[in-house]
């Protein structure tokens, strides 16, 4: 069974795209509630770690760079990326070796689309902290180090972090629509 294409409402089912997205970017200050399925499914745990990595990579990028593409261009990229992800997950294909690099790449492209779609103007506050283009090479390296430390020290990882392996008690699944994202 494939993590991207199956129903996520059952505790036994692999997590779908939107569930992985929702888990990859939880609301600030809200402890992450992980589906019980993640505890028993290394494949979904790794997929979530890949999505999280993609989100983090994107958060560190200069939004001005993203804004150079039109909404139509990003829409096309998004559709192509989703199709690529589904092809990777087709039954009968040897995907174990390719998934480790293919999914993060696909996720990065898809999340690129996420951060520019439905956004008519760049966010000045977000751009102020995310814009690393004007920094020296050393400052950019230091910036990346501090962001990594922030993520690691706060336990914001899934596949290899202990916290990520433990489900929230009484929570068997997470519906993004119920998490206050609107």
């Amino acid at each position: 069974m494939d993590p991207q294409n199956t129903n996520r409402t059952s505790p036994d089912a692999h997590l779908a795209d939107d569930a992985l997205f929702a888990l990859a970017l939880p609301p600030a200050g809200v402890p992450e509630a992980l589906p019980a399925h993640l505890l028993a499914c290394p494949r979904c745990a790794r997929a979530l770690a890949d999505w999280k990595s993609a989100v983090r990579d994107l958060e560190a990028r200069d939004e001005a760079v993203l804004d150079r593409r039109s909404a139509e261009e990003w829409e096309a990229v998004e559709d192509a990326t989703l199709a690529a992800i589904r092809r990777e997950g087709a039954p009968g294909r040897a995907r174990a070796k390719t998934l480790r690099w293919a999914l993060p790449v696909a996720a990065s492209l898809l999340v690129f689309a996420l951060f520019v779609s439905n956004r008519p103007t760049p966010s000045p506050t977000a751009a102020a902290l995310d814009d690393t283009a004007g920094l020296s090479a050393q400052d950019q390296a230091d910036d990346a180090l501090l962001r990594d430390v922030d993520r690691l020290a706060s336990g914001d990882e899934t596949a290899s972090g202990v916290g990520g392996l433990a489900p929230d008690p009484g929570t068997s699944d997470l519906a993004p629509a119920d998490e206050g994202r609107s």
Partner: protein
Amino acid sequence: MRPLAVALLCAAFLLPSSSRAADLPEGKWWKHPRVAAEINLTPDQVREMDDIFARARPKLVEGKAELEKRQGDLQDAIDANAGRGEVASRIEAVEAARTELQKTRILMVLDMRRTLKPEQWDRLIEMRREIRQQRRERFGRYLERRRGEQPR
């Protein structure tokens, strides 16, 4: 260590991890021109931030490497279906490394905070929260759109 610093450190460790992360600035924020302008950071303050970070950097680099190594060890044990005792000891090693890294990070941030005026710090934290809110809103709009397009 001063009592206030000890109290703040203890409070930080008692809070949920995601709350801690949300309440602290991320990246090398004092080098971002727009951030510096927004909180009226002076050149002297920038120099102080650089000095504080330079003192902390070796321990941050070392702590990050140690934590990643321990995480790799844990993942290897899980992948190899190691026994509960082995996995438990590696979990403890991961969390010990994480605690050490968090301690280094929070002490550095405390030092930085002391160089700022209260209003500068408050604005910095407010900016961080605004950023996360904006990201969540964009993310939510995206998810809504995707759900609307997918067949039920």
